[in-house]
């Protein structure tokens, strides 16, 4: 996987999120959205370590994971516009979308709740001998949820093929994670479960891919779960209306110099810069075409309101 490929995958997520924010401002997106700007290297790197059949579970900041796993961009825009999308028919919107066709078990609006669910996918993989792994992404704040602790321990004692990716973006919602825990790195908790834990540069897709691949290999071999803590920074607020008054002056500007796309750009020579510019133009066209197509998707028929509750 070459540099422009990773760049393209990350740029798709970045541009998707930026476009989403603009659509939100324009009133085309109802409700709250949680963007992952700055964190793109984590889903893109992790996706490189996965194959078809490996399930992914994410948080409400999970658009990047959905895109990295191949969920249709037009469907995602339409779902978030409250339209009758092929993704979830307007039932899920931004914080709870999913796509079984791409083994994307979904986002979750309850912090940490995806970890027990991902553990279940790992149980299926183990009991059916499918060789699949279950990857679940959570934020740093979720490490303080009881359901996460329960699920990691459960996966550990059952040797389940689970990989927990902690996207440490410094803030748990609107509070600094350093004020919420007494340990320096969240991956230190792995020792308490008797499983491996690693800290990686979450702004480097290669570093993420390598660490996740190691954890995936271990999981596929039947050796149980691992924790990968990917250090990153959020370039935007916790949610769409968050003005981030709690962040120190200059913090976001400094993060913009470390974020994964800027990092690739900073190291690029003239030839690569030209290629990246071309990639940006293609991504821009793709995103705009997806928005146009999403606007063609009809709104759901209220007469269908009681469908899908029961089989």
């Amino acid at each position, binding site marked *: 996987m070459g540099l422009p490929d990773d760049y393209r995958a990350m740029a798709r997520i970045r541009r998707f999120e930026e476009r989403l924010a603009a659509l939100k401002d324009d009133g085309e997106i109802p409700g709250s959205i949680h963007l992952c700007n700055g964190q793109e290297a984590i889903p893109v790197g992790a996706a490189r370590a996965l194959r078809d059949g490996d*399930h992914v*579970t994410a948080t409400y900041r999970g658009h990047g994971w959905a895109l990295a796993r191949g969920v249709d961009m037009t469907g995602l825009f339409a779902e978030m516009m409250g339209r009758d999308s092929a993704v*979830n*028919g*307007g*039932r*899920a919107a931004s914080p*709870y979308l*999913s*796509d*079984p*066709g791409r083994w994307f*078990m*979904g986002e*979750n*609006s*309850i912090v940490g*709740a995806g*970890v*027990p*669910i*991902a*553990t*279940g*996918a*790992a*149980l*299926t*993989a183990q*009991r*059916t001998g499918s060789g699949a792994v*279950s990857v679940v992404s959570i934020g740093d704040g979720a490490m303080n949820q*009881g*359901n996460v602790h*329960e*699920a990691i*321990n*459960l996966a550990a*004692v*059952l040797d389940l093929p689970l990989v927990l990716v902690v996207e440490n973006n410094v803030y748990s919602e609107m509070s600094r994670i350093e004020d919420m825990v007494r340990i320096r790195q969240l991956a230190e908790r792995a020792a308490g479960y008797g499983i491996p834990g690693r800290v990686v540069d979450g702004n480097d897709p290669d570093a993420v891919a390598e660490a996740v691949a190691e954890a995936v290999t271990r999981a596929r071999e039947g050796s149980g779960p691992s924790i990968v803590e990917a250090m990153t920074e959020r370039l935007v607020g916790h949610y769409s209306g968050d003005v981030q008054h709690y962040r120190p002056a200059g913090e976001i500007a400094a993060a913009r110099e470390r974020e994964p796309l800027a990092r690739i750009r900073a190291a690029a020579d003239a030839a690569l810069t030209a290629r990246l510019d071309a990639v940006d133009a293609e991504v821009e066209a793709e995103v705009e075409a997806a928005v146009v197509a999403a606007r063609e998707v009809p709104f759901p028929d209220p007469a269908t309101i009681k*469908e*899908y*509750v*029961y*089989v």
Partner: protein
Amino acid sequence: MSESLRYIQAVNAALAWSLESRSDTVYFGEDVALPGGPFGATKGLHKRFGSDRIFDTPISETGFLGMALGAAMTGLRPIAEIMYADFSFVAMDQIVNQIATIRYSSAGRWKAPLVIRMQQGYSPGACAQHSHSVEAYFAHTPGLRVALPSTPDDAYQMLRTAVVSDDPVVVAEARMLYPTRGPVRTDAPVEPIGGARVVRDGRDATVVAWSRMVPAALAAADQLAAEGIETEVIDLRWLNPLDFDTVGASVARTGRLVVAHEANLTGGFGAEIAARAASECFADLRAPVARVAAPDVPMPAAPALQKAVVPEAEHVAEAVRGTVRR
């Protein structure tokens, strides 16, 4: 073929049937494998089916109910045991926010074919955290099916129905009924989900009950018959799907309705039955709907205090007399 089994043995037989006949079934919970369950519901199953199919979990209700959901979404058919129904409250997020919603929120692209098996209700000396009747909490939640078997045969049939269902089902058994014995049709075909049952015919009043209050209602009907009052008793069996047609048809015959449950009064599922009767059976009713329920207090542990809280046959009989006198 019909066998005489205790209620708890019928549960065991239904689980054995599920593990035997469906290779996608797995069973897990606390102390269910090697120990065989605190009430013996899973006795012998680990030896027969092995650790791949039935295994013990840490004491982590949220963790293993979420695991049940993820496993159900990806191809297994898990049955997760909550030891005491009270402990389901520890895992309410997974039950209410996750298990109940995934099918709807994915527009039917995922489903959650799983069973949450638990036992509920009071027993002598059990405290407020081991005595809840939880059915109204789950019947209130769209997406969940709710089953409350009252006989050994229903314990067998309804659990099998729950396992076969593609919807998530909460099966709440009655701990106090575990020792009761009755005929169990072990070779019956699996029943479709739902369906109330008239378990005693009568012309003067209808009693709708479920779980432990069904035998209490039948005992009340015996007492009332001696007084010349003929009581029709309906075992509601499933709160979801709710078979109100059977209730409405009975009220059309009797003109009087008493709803009896062990859960406390306010917001109990009896309120739902009463409301449905008021809106759908108003012309048939010759007296106000009466409810028999526990008073709105947490369950005390001392038997002398429990006696003041737990509804029994005499409370049902008195409620029926009250409606018939009007």
